[in-house]
């Protein structure tokens, strides 16, 4: 009984702030300042405003596009690297791991500002590529760690057996390890997507227009229908829209996400 009460409290803890922003996004007119949790009238008005605004729709397009591209490239590169790190003996392995660790420790903001200068010089400022590249380098360490943890759980004997059976190292990787690691790759992809989707620092420092600005950064610069009205409720609506992909992924792949997060950290 005690545990059930605890469980319900935890669910409430996790959900209430989300419900609050959802409720706020449905408020309209005087309801917005009624200071109560729920609106008196449920209205789609804010969603209409948000989707009518180019600022938001281009930002949404930017976010989706850049996140998918960065995630795909990152996971492919990380899969190869994680396999090499967890299974092969080659000089410089520690260097790769060390660099990955250094990046996770280094403050994003400390990279963003010099990158701001560099990108302006070479013309990557305010472009998709200009964001995808730092997304890659910042998400790679995470994917590498998560995937290396997965690879380590695949018994060594598997590849050795393949080698004895006549496979080259590449065949062993392609035909035995990749199929076995597929769930891990998928988990790494979800975690990487979360990380990239969540980016704010690069988004505000490396963009100046809607050409490449992702949603989190756009939210901070969001203006209401008129310059003077507070854009609170439309921001709430926009926030709800960008939260939907996260909630869907969580609902579908809860088990994999938990496994990926804890594996990488505890064993990695």
């Amino acid at each position: 009984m005690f545990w059930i009460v605890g469980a319900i409290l935890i669910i409430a803890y996790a959900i209430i702030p989300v419900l609050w922003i959802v409720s706020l996004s449905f408020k309209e007119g005087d309801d917005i300042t009624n200071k109560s949790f729920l609106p008196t009238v449920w209205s789609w008005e804010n969603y209409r405003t948000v989707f009518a605004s180019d600022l938001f729709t281009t930002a949404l397009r930017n976010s989706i596009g850049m996140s998918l591209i960065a995630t795909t490239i990152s996971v492919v590169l990380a899969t190869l690297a994680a396999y090499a790190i967890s299974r092969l003996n080659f000089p410089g392995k520690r260097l790769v791991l060390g660099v990955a660790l250094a990046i996770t420790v280094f403050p994003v903001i400390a990279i963003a500002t010099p990158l701001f200068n560099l990108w302006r010089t070479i013309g990557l400022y305010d472009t998709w590529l200009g964001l995808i590249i730092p997304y890659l380098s910042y998400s790679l360490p995470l994917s590498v760690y998560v995937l290396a943890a997965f690879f380590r759980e695949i018994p060594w004997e598997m590849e050795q057996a393949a080698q004895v059976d006549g496979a080259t190292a590449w065949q062993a990787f392609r035909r035995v390890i990749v199929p076995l690691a597929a769930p891990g790759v998928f988990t790494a992809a979800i975690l990487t997507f979360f990380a990239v989707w969540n980016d704010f620092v690069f988004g505000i420092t490396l963009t100046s227009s809607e050409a490449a600005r992702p949603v989190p950064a756009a939210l901070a610069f969001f203006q209401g229908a008129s310059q003077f009205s507070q854009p609170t409720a439309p921001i709430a609506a926009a926030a709800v829209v960008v939260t939907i992909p996260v909630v869907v992924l969580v609902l579908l792949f809860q088990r994999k996400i938990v496994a990926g997060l804890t594996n990488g950290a505890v064993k990695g």
Partner: protein
Amino acid sequence: MSTTIPAAPPSAPTRTRPQRRRAPVTDRARKERNLGWLLAGPAFIAMVAVTGYPILNAIWLSLFDYRLTDPAGRDFVGLGNYATILTDGLFWKQFGVTSLITVVTVSAELVLGFALAMVMHRALYLRTALRTAILVPYGIITVVSAYAWAYGFSNTYGFVNGLFGLGDYDWFGGTWSALFTVCVAEIWKTTPFMSLLLLAGLAQIPDDYLEAAKVDGATAWQRVKRVILPNMKAAIMVALLFRTLDAFRIFDSIFIMTAGAQGTETLSFLAYRQTISRVMVGLGSAVSVILAILVVLIAVMFVRVFRTDLSQQRGDRK
């Protein structure tokens, strides 16, 4: 056909050694090396290319008095920027704010996260619902979470004042109350991550230990204190390390919730403001470098404590 080989005493040093020649690198080993770099190379380049230059560039720029709007007036000042920053009372205040947020949020997350982990570990019902719910704050964009809490605490829109009957109390009007709201938002967003790491540690403790403790007459609290916690040390340290490093770099929530007003500016925010808003590139880079050094120091400290702790544990068992 049967052969008998005279027994060689395992430690006989008089035995003539077969001629030692360096074993040539076998096909297998050589192919393995090549493949290793072929596979890890692209990721390595992607990581180094984008971070290596900016880090070195930041260190270089931090040695100049350099304003983006006035490139001609760029002056080499050596460690002058660092001196300026470290002698500035404002920097120390922001250092204090950052440390305070770090300590408060991480300790609250540890306690709360442990409770969450215990419930998730024990709960027989609602298990899936629990784990799914807990992932929502983890997955949600920090900016969205910051907005949700900023609006929640707002005295114009928020439900918090209404709920607790606080009238028009302005949470964002004072340093302490504003910091409080920031901490609440941070704790809400990141406790789930902490609790999942702790849950993984908890799951690795065999039930036997707890049953044995029960038979030995330990109370529930004694079981937590004497069996669970000592066996979770590694998981706790890892979770603390991850979260401390993260909390010390807090930026998004401050940007959205207070924009550094009311003395809530943190070091990351200072670095951003100097470089991007005030275009004081030299000074901003110096702040970034200092921040990076502090983060590395924290990491090193943790790893130190962690190491001695682990080796002591091993010592105890022998």
